[in-house]
């Protein structure tokens, strides 16, 4: 092949790579643009303060679903954050053994298990034994999704903490556990906080694990042993309904959800970029 042809071929292939990128960005803007146009046009105040209404009756909101999503995330956080961080600590600080290897491996696999399976699992584990759908079950399902994300983030940020810092603490007579709590974890905190924020962004957008754990509800509820509404399940139910006004509410709710999730992601990114000293 002579050089001219090779050169042209090279340019074409590079052009295709540029095109791929443009295509990716095109889809991103298409999806987000759609969301903005259809979501913003249906957005109104009653969405944030009113309860759902039957189809045909104007108005109605998803206030209970917003609160529900927050409550579910809080439950998941209460369970998931400590377990995730502690498991990460075990892997890095105590784990010179097979168990640490297995924890890391299983945690990685767990993070790739389809979330609908986690929903089925929690249904069998909690919903069947409690004999009812509940916010607790939804929160537990979300916490199982959260744990591997936080474990991974903790593991990676603790590995970045130089060993000399630990030794400095030991040399001052600090026991290992106080070294970890007072020096190692705070030193790795920005990475862990980033991980926690991404984990929240992730679980707030989850639908599948909630479908048959926390189910849905048209009422105000903060009770852990009762079904509870969530933004995502509400969107799903409304979007797949035949009523135009419900579909519009689904769009507006999607917009709210996307804003929360993207904001959390951008915050996480910003937090991760903050100056780390190592």
């Amino acid at each position, binding site marked *: 092949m002579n050089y001219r042809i090779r050169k042209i071929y*090279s340019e074409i292939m590079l052009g295709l790579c540029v095109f791929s990128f443009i295509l990716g960005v095109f889809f991103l803007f298409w999806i987000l643009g759609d969301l903005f146009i259809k979501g913003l046009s249906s957005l109104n105040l009653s969405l944030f303060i009113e309860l759902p209404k039957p189809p045909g009756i104007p108005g109605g909101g998803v206030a209970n679903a917003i609160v529900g999503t927050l409550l579910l995330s809080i439950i998941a956080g209460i369970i998931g954050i400590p377990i995730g961080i502690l498991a990460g600590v075990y892997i890095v600080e105590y784990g010179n053994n097979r168990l640490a290897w297995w924890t890391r491996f299983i945690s990685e696999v767990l993070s790739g298990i389809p979330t609908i*399976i986690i929903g089925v699992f929690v249904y069998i584990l909690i919903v069947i034994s409690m004999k009812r759908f509940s916010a607790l079950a939804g929160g537990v399902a979300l916490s199982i999704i959260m*744990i591997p994300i936080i474990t991974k983030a903790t593991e990676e940020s603790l590995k970045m903490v130089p060993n000399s810092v630990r030794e400095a603490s030991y040399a001052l007579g600090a026991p290992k556990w106080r070294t970890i709590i007072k020096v190692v974890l705070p030193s790795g905190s920005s990475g862990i906080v980033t991980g926690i924020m991404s984990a929240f962004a992730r679980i707030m957008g989850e639908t599948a694990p909630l479908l048959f754990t926390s189910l849905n509800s048209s009422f105000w509820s903060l009770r852990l042993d009762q079904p509870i509404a969530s933004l995502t399940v509400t969107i799903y139910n409304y*979007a797949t309904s035949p009523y135009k006004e419900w579909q519009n509410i689904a769009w507006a709710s999607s917009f709210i959800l996307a804003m929360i999730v993207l904001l959390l992601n951008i915050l996480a990114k910003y937090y991760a970029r903050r100056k780390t000293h190592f």
Partner: protein
Amino acid sequence: MRKNIGERIFKNLTLLSSLIIILVMGAIFYELLIASIPSIKRFGWRFLIETIWDPVIEHFSALPSIYGTIITSIIALILGFPISIGIAIFISEICPYYLKQPLSFIIELLGAIPSIIYGMWGLFTLAPIIQIKIGPFLNKYLGFLPFFQGYPMGVGFLTAGIVLAIMIIPTISSISREIISAVPKEQREGALALGMTQWEMIWKVVLGNAKSGIFAGGILGLGRALGETMAVTMVIGNSPKISLSLFSPGYTISSTIANEFTEAVGKLHLSSLIELALILFFITFFTIALTRYFIIKRIEKR
């Protein structure tokens, strides 16, 4: 020895957390297996090879769902994989240095969008376009292939595949980008010094070096496509059919579960749905284990 007590408590708490993770994994497998027993007893191996999924006559088999899962994932990979690699090459090899971070963040945003929103977009925006524009077009020019025969309804395998393709782009491209960036500079310079064009350098040297890593990324993307639920459920049409036509509505494993689980009245129906979940569990477990194998292999090569 007060200090020792603190040490012991803290260490055991971390140990306990590790065990919880492993226990949850074991429990998922165990519970799914136990709950599938009625279905396994009733249908045996036929569950995997028969084509009827009918709650009314209480006859269940997984093939339509497995078929849909595989078809949609294949479409997603065919469309999404090359684009992902192209994006990875663009970001790591072509775009100026100061744009690398922001541009990869934009692509990562694709991965941050909740799947329910992909579903909304797929259902209300993409499906009509498939039905009115793309479907008839493909039918007209490629209608001689079995894949593009029949009347496009908007929802179906093709729509689900396209949505999945977009969803797996961030997964594959971010892993590929990391691996491509890790190829040493000397290798590139060596190739260019031999008189290779930039593309030849990328193709032969960079991708040659990054092969197994990119493959691992592809499998991870596949894993995501296999298990994705909401977006697919909203655009696949939800009907247990096996059809070569990509315009046809169908089912995937996850969409069957999402669609029927709360409405499953019969014990056998529920048990069959849980067996489906068990199958999906095996499939994803296998793909992730495979990915790890390739990543480990890549590390060993270093």
